[in-house]
């Protein structure tokens, strides 16, 4: 059956990259070409598997088969190859293949380090590609999350590529923590969504759009949480700081994860949510502001950088903001349809010029420098690299002739249309134009610097060079392999111009994937270059305004020196707060002083006990005086007990203390006698004796205590707490003891202690004619068996509840072992008589008297 075939196909597509990547680990270090060959199999397999499954199942919104994995967690292996997913899958695997080649050129051939790097790089890359392909194709919401977190992990490892470089490590942590936080928000959102609607699959969501109550609070908050996740991943303001930081990673990674694919995961998720969640009223209100601000901030900051990678990182941020805004606009409608069109084209457009930009940046950093001011006139030395960079830069500037131009047009149209519904979007329009100007300006600066045209200004000494790719020696290869460092970029960027100059090709390639076909894309494809000219409109004016302004800005002196991004302080501050501040808070509780601990515990007890007991009026209506409280002996013994107990704290002489302790014990023995418990009395008596002996011995071993006068307040507090706790416990005892249960287990035990007999109503045993006791079968134990003893307590100990006694003697033995282990026999004489650890575990030592060898002497 094709469905099931295709789910396996997709599974292969997902697993192929990591498999190939891991496979390279077993290749010999020297086999570089082979390594590349094996590694590239992964993305290619993925690419073609996805194509194949499309040819089988087509671009349908219904999942194709399912492989059970963790049903009780709502995680199964099912994949959704609709336009969005399939497009992303192809994008990732396609560019992935290019990156594999580029990495070969980037890390080079010679030198142990480069081989080392290549060997390390491909497995991680494969892991990431698997994660990414899975993320975009997963159908189960939680499966998406699973791959989502996998991408975070792989990006963490790739950013921390230069291990042993503290800064890179720190930046890796920053990125991981930020995206991880987002991931947790996403998790919360998914769970909340599933919990409120019962939807655990994207396909289910798409099918039951009408059924779901989109305006319910649960859905709203689920959406907010998920958007937080998406925003953190896609570097939306104010969480965008991690993306420029992520440039610590080697350039192939920046080109792949941090421009083309992973950072788009958030955009992708928004696209996934779009069909349903745009019915949430707050959709646009939540997304558009963040998107627009991000767009503008990214553009402006990009203008203020010198390091090429940082420049492009900030333009990425800006572009991501634009994409988010684009999806946000779908919350508004124009002519009855959501104001969104050609989202796939927008995404593809960005990928197709941003990856080449990074590739070129890495390449130029390889052979020359990555600081723009240092590259003055570099064009004449490194032609191909600069050509690649400039072609891509032109697309960045959305110049006519690239697909980027109509894309920007379409975006402006969308804003323009939506603005009719929500006038405040004119602001967004203005921000867009400003951003576009920044982009153009950046291109102009690239152009002028690389070509070496100076308009009355000279190259400045560049700031600190951070993360130059200097550790790679500038070895110059020749032949095709040398081209690997720019060729992939050129290939990718060429798509820009194909799309820009021959729109039908572009439509043929990408129109099928368009998930939001609303205006143009309904019938005709992307607007050609002429469309704009022939249909003059405000957006057109805007774009020309942007281009013109951008050129001026580019050649002007404005914002030419490097500025730091204030947001870089966010993570360190958060870290500081959680680590230091958190530690302070924690240490407020965990003071290390036992007295405080006691206070906490007792306070908790009093609080909860009071809360539980005081409202319990049944507890307050206690039998005022249980019968027989006037019993003389009892009263006397009770008074003695209380007196001796109370006396203990007030005696200063330790011996007398012990005496009182003993006296208290003996009076307790008396109480036992009143309660008709001879065994108890005897046992307690003996234990009293032994304990007192122990006390006397130990007191000799302890240092003399210094009489510490405690402050009056302290004393009063102590007394108050002690009194209230004692009161609580006593009260509790009385309550429990006076609630007389109808049936007590003890009675049955008494009955069966010797044998089981029938009892008359008078409670006496029944006798038959011969005067033998009648055996009763009618008791709870329904057996005539007895334990054959008259001393019920003893019988309980050794038979009915023998397990207690068993454990009890175990405790006793343990106590002794503990004492022996804690207090090993110290040996007379010089330590070097020590037999040493390896002779015996417990050595009795060279002691004259063998029996003082109590446990484990050293």
């Amino acid at each position, binding site marked *: 059956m094709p469905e099931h075939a295709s789910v396996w196909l997709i599974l292969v597509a997902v697993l192929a990259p990591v498999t190939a990547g891991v496979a390279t680990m077993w290749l010999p270090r020297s086999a570089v070409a082979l390594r590349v060959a094996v590694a590239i199999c992964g993305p290619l397999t993925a690419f073609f598997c996805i194509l194949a499954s499309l040819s089988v199942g087509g671009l349908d919104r219904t999942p194709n088969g399912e492989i059970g994995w963790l049903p009780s967690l709502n995680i199964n292996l099912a994949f959704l190859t609709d336009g969005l997913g399939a497009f992303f899958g192809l994008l990732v695997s396609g560019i992935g293949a290019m990156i594999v080649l580029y990495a070969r050129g980037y890390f080079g051939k010679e030198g142990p380090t480069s081989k080392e790097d290549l060997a390390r790089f491909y497995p991680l890359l494969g892991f990431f590609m698997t994660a990414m392909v899975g993320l975009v194709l997963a159908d189960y919401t939680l499966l998406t999350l699973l791959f989502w977190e996998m991408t975070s992990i792989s990006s963490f490892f790739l950013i921390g590529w230069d291990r042993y470089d503290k800064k890179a490590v720190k930046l890796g942590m920053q990125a991981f923590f930020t995206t991880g936080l987002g991931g947790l928000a996403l998790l919360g959102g998914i769970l909340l969504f599933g919990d409120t609607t019962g939807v655990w699959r994207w396909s289910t969501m798409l099918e039951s759009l009408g059924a779901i109550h989109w305006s319910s609070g649960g859905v709203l908050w689920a959406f907010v949480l998920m958007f937080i996740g998406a925003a953190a991943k896609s570097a939306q303001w104010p969480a965008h700081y991690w993306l420029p930081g992520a440039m610590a990673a080697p350039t192939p990674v920046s080109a792949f994860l941090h421009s083309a694919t992973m950072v788009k995961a958030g955009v992708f998720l928004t696209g996934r949510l779009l069909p349903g969640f745009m019915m949430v009223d707050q959709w646009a209100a939540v997304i558009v502001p963040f998107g627009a601000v991000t767009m503008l901030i990214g553009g402006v900051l990009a203008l203020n950088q010198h390091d090429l990678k940082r420049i492009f990182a900030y333009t990425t941020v800006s572009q991501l903001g634009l994409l988010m805004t684009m999806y946000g606009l779908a919350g508004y409608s124009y002519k009855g349809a959501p104001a969104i069109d050609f989202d796939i084209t927008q995404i593809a457009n960005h990928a197709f010029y941003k990856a080449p930009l990074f590739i070129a940046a890495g390449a130029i950093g390889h052979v020359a420098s990555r600081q723009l001011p240092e590259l003055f006139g570099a064009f004449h030395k490194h032609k191909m690299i600069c050509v690649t960079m400039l072609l891509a830069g032109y697309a960045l500037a959305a110049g006519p002739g690239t697909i980027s131009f109509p894309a920007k047009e379409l975006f402006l149209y969308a804003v323009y249309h939506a603005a009719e519904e929500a006038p405040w979007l004119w602001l967004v329009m203005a921000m867009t134009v400003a951003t576009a100007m920044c982009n153009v300006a950046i291109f102009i600066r690239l152009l002028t610097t690389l070509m070496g045209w100076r308009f009355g200004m000279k190259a400045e000494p560049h700031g600190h060079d951070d993360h130059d790719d200097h550790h790679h020696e500038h070895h110059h290869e020749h032949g095709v392999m040398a081209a690997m460092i720019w060729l992939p970029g050129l290939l990718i960027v060429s798509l820009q111009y194909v799309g820009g100059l021959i729109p039908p090709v572009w439509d043929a390639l990408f129109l099928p994937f368009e998930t939001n076909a609303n205006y143009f894309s309904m019938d005709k494809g992307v607007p050609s270059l002429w469309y704009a000219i022939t249909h003059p409109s405000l957006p057109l004016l805007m774009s020309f305004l942007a281009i013109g302004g951008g050129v001026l800005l580019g050649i002007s002196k404005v914002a030419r020196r490097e500025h730091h991004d204030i947001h870089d302080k966010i993570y360190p501050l958060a870290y500081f707060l959680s680590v230091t501040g958190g530690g302070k808070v924690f240490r407020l509780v965990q003071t290390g002083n036992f007295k405080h601990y006691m206070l906490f515990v007792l306070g908790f007890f009093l609080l909860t006990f009071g809360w539980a007991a005081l409202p319990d009026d049944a507890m307050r209506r206690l039998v005022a005086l249980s019968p027989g409280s006037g019993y003389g002996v009892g009263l006397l013994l009770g008074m003695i007990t209380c007196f001796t107990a109370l006396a203990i704290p007030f005696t200063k002489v330790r011996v007398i203390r012990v005496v009182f302790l003993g006296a208290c014990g003996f009076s307790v023995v008396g109480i036992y006698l009143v309660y008709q418990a*001879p*065994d108890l009395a*005897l*046992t307690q008596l*003996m*234990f009293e*004796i*032994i304990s007192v*002996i*122990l006390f006397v*011995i*130990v007191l*000799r*071993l302890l240092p003399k205590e210094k009489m510490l006068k405690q402050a009056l307040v302290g004393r009063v507090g102590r007394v108050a707490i002690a009194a209230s706790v004692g009161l609580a416990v006593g009260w509790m005892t009385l309550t429990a003891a006076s609630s007389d249960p109808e049936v007590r287990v003890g009675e049955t035990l008494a009955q069966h202690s010797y044998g089981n007999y029938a009892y008359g109503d008078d409670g006496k045993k029944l006798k038959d004619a011969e005067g033998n006791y009648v055996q009763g079968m009618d008791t709870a134990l329904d057996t005539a068996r*007895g*334990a*054959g*003893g*008259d*001393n019920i*307590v*003893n*019988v309980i*100990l*050794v*038979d009915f509840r*023998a*397990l207690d*006694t*068993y454990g009890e*003697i*175990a405790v*006793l*033995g343990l*106590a*002794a*072992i503990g*004492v*022996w282990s804690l*207090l*090993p*026999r*110290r*040996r*007379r*004489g*010089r*330590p070097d*008589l*020590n037999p040493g650890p390896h002779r015996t575990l417990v050595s*009795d030592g060279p002691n004259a*008297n*063998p*029996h*003082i*060898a*109590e*446990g484990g002497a*050293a």
Partner: protein
Amino acid sequence: MSSMLLRTAMRLLFPLTLLFGVYMTIKGHNEPGGGFIGGLILATALALYRMAAGPGSLWDIIPVHPRVLVTVGLGFATLTALGPMLLGLPVLTSWTGDVPLPFGESVHLATALVFDLGVVFVVIGVSIGMITRLSEECEDLDDPTPLSDDSAEADRAAGEGGAA
């Protein structure tokens, strides 16, 4: 403390106390008494004996490390626990019955007595072990000869406990 008086007193009382302890243990199943009480009486007697006769004197009576007593006692208990299992009964199932004595009499016995015996051993071993160990520490205080302080060795031993 170990005066002449105490020593003579002990010489007289000691056997009696031992007998009393044993008696208490045996009759425990039917009358006040039992393993704990019996064991404690014996332990107290032995402790007092040590106080009277001085360090090392106990070795003449119990020539084993108290550890052994504890092990044996728990072993007895374990036997009574596991015995029934061999017969397919739940753990700790006891058996009671009348055992005929040679003189035609018969005495009522229960396997629980074995359990009690184990209790006695444990109690004696524990009490004696602790008391002797601690009182030795006291005697070390009086003894002038230097001790190899164990704390250094202990810290090395617990080294990784401390590894910071």
